[in-house]
């Protein structure tokens, strides 16, 4: 049923429909509305779950780790510094193959402190062994959570659903919240693989000396690569069951005829689509490739979709300081070396710390790469605040 609802509340309701046994979280803006709503749902007796209010994100992640290892379906949510504080546990959860679902309400990283949106937080743990899915809007954010539990529990990989802080979490949009029965039909009960239980004593989290460690990383890497099939299957099962497309690996918009292709992920793709429509009216052929699954990275899909495209521009809300665009690096790596010579892949970083990305900014970007490729550029910088002596 379509409901005018805040993004955070939509996600909370859908997470509750997935019937997690244990929820643990620590408040951080802009994640708060998600966990407040879940606390209300549990408090009202609408969800039979343990809601553990902890003293830090570090413990929130540790609580869901323990709960998952004991056989519970477990959920947490965080943002920014909270995710960084969790990071040690985040790596453990993946290494221990615990199918936990986490919502990252994407936010900038200190210093300076900024509560506003970008994607530097989830990007900081991109190599931890989690599946990372990026939502375009609140419908997709909600839908991805239903898919996330199923993907996690089929692959024994944790799943992070990324949704842009404030832009999505605090936005009211119509969202189709499914019926409980629809979710129950789609998402089977959690069948854990290894648990701590006195009936079957076993050790979880033993240490591995150099004879054993490397294989665990290889297996985890391969499992992430293989999760590609599960992500695609679950996405198409979802489309069949709920009648709408959500998630998957990549999505495209007016790509076929496009002479310039913009690549991005998250909520900014809405603005990009708007620009594409405007430019189309003026006879310009611009298309979009949207990354939905950032990890595992859809290298083959990107290549197949773009193998005939010669002018590509990557727009991202994160940066590898001292290196440049992170998504741009992934995209450049998606093409065989021999093919790179005449293909232009430009890289723009934008929207850090909540800086608005306007349609004019995007138009400037597209027009610039139409003339010449851009190795790397910050979009929308306020030059008057920058002095050479500070660098």
């Amino acid at each position, binding site marked *: 049923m379509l409901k005018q609802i805040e993004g955070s509340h939509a996600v909370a309701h859908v997470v509750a429909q997935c019937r997690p046994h244990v929820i643990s979280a620590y408040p951080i803006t802009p994640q708060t509305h998600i966990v407040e709503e879940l606390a209300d749902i549990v408090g009202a007796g609408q969800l039979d779950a343990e809601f553990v209010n902890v*003293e830090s994100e*570090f413990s929130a992640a540790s609580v869901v780790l323990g709960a998952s290892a004991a056989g*519970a379906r477990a959920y947490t949510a965080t943002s920014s510094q909270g995710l960084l504080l969790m990071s040690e*546990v985040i790596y453990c959860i993946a290494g221990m193959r615990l199918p936990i679902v986490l919502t990252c309400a994407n936010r900038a990283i200190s210093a300076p402190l900024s509560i506003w949106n970008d994607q530097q937080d989830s990007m900081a743990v991109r190599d931890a062994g989690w599946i990372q899915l990026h939502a375009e809007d609140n419908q997709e954010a909600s839908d991805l959570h239903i898919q996330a539990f199923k993907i996690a529990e089929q692959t024994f990989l944790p799943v992070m659903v990324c949704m842009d802080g404030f832009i999505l979490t605090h936005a009211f949009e119509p969202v189709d919240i499914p019926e409980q029965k629809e979710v129950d039909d789609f998402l089977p009960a959690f069948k854990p693989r290894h648990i*701590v239980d006195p009936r079957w004593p076993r*050790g979880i*989290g033993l*240490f591995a000396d150099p004879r054993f460690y490397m294989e665990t990383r290889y297996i985890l890497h391969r499992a992430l690569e293989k999760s590609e099939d599960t992500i695609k299957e679950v996405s198409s099962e979802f489309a069949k069951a709920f009648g709408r497309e959500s998630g998957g690996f990549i999505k495209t918009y007016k790509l076929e005829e496009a002479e310039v292709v913009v690549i991005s992920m998250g909520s900014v793709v809405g603005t990009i689509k708007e620009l594409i429509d405007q430019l189309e009216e003026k006879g310009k052929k611009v298309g979009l490739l949207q990354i939905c699954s950032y990890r595992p990275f859809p290298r083959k899909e990107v290549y197949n979709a773009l193998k005939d495209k010669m002018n590509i521009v990557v727009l991202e809300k994160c940066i590898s300081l001292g290196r440049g665009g992170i998504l741009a690096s992934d995209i450049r790596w998606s093409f065989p070396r021999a093919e790179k010579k005449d293909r232009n892949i430009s890289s723009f970083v934008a929207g850090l710390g909540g800086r608005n990305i306007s349609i004019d900014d995007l138009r400037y970007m597209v027009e610039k790469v139409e003339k010449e490729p851009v190795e790397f550029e910050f979009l929308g910088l306020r030059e008057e605040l920058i002095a050479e002596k500070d660098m």
Partner: protein
Amino acid sequence: MREQSKYLEGVDKKDLFASGHRACGGCGQALAARLVADAAGENTIACVATGCLEVFSSPYPDPSWRIPFLHSLFENAAAVASGVDAAYKALKKGPVNIIAQGGDGSTADIGFQSISGMLERGHNVLYICYDNEAYMNTGVQRSSFTPYGARTTTTPTGNTTRKKNMPMLAADHGIPYVATATVDDFRDLQVKIRKALTIEGPKYVHILAPCPLGWGHHGELTVEICRLAKDTGLFPVYEIIDGKVTNVRKIPVKVPVEEYLKPQGRFKHLFKKGVPSKEVDEIQEIANQNIERFNL
């Protein structure tokens, strides 16, 4: 005595923490871990912090645990145990004994916040601190449990601060049961574990576990060193039930701290040519204060 026997019914040497692990000879922690596992019995889940115990007992593929064992990090054993507790409640499983275990570093320092959270939230978890008074797993560095005067690799001229009083800090969370114990008195230690496990809610048991390597004493002296720690007054043994200190172990014959310090290499620098330095007086003062405070 009769009350103690009641708690020990059914406890015997089952080796739920099996031999063949890789602890040093005379390791107080290995001995304590076995006593704890046997006292707790099969229906127990051990959530263990990174540290000596974890390293010497859980190498893949041959761990020493015959009860379920869960380890992830150094500072989160109490939070992981909280998660296991929450899962058991949510899944309506149990009852089960959930025991979080760590050394003094993971208890008093890096894991302090996580333990405080677990105690404050009221989880049905027993936390056990194996106190060997320094970071032994990484090579004997100072922790906030390192006693005054002790030499470690990061306090080469002797530690200048007094030991953090963790049992009192735990008790001030308003939890129902706190106890201290040592590895020389098996019976007392196991009674306290059993007693703790009969109580619903968070429990804290602090066990003095000498480390021959870090303390610089012969392995066969582990038990004797514990006795001296108690009889000097340096390690008071007591329980705190619902906030009240009780069942304090009385010292039969008071022993000067010198007798505790001299067999240990970590205090050797306090006796130049056999003459005690002024630090020894300070340590005697600490013992005297304990004797007065707890009426030992």
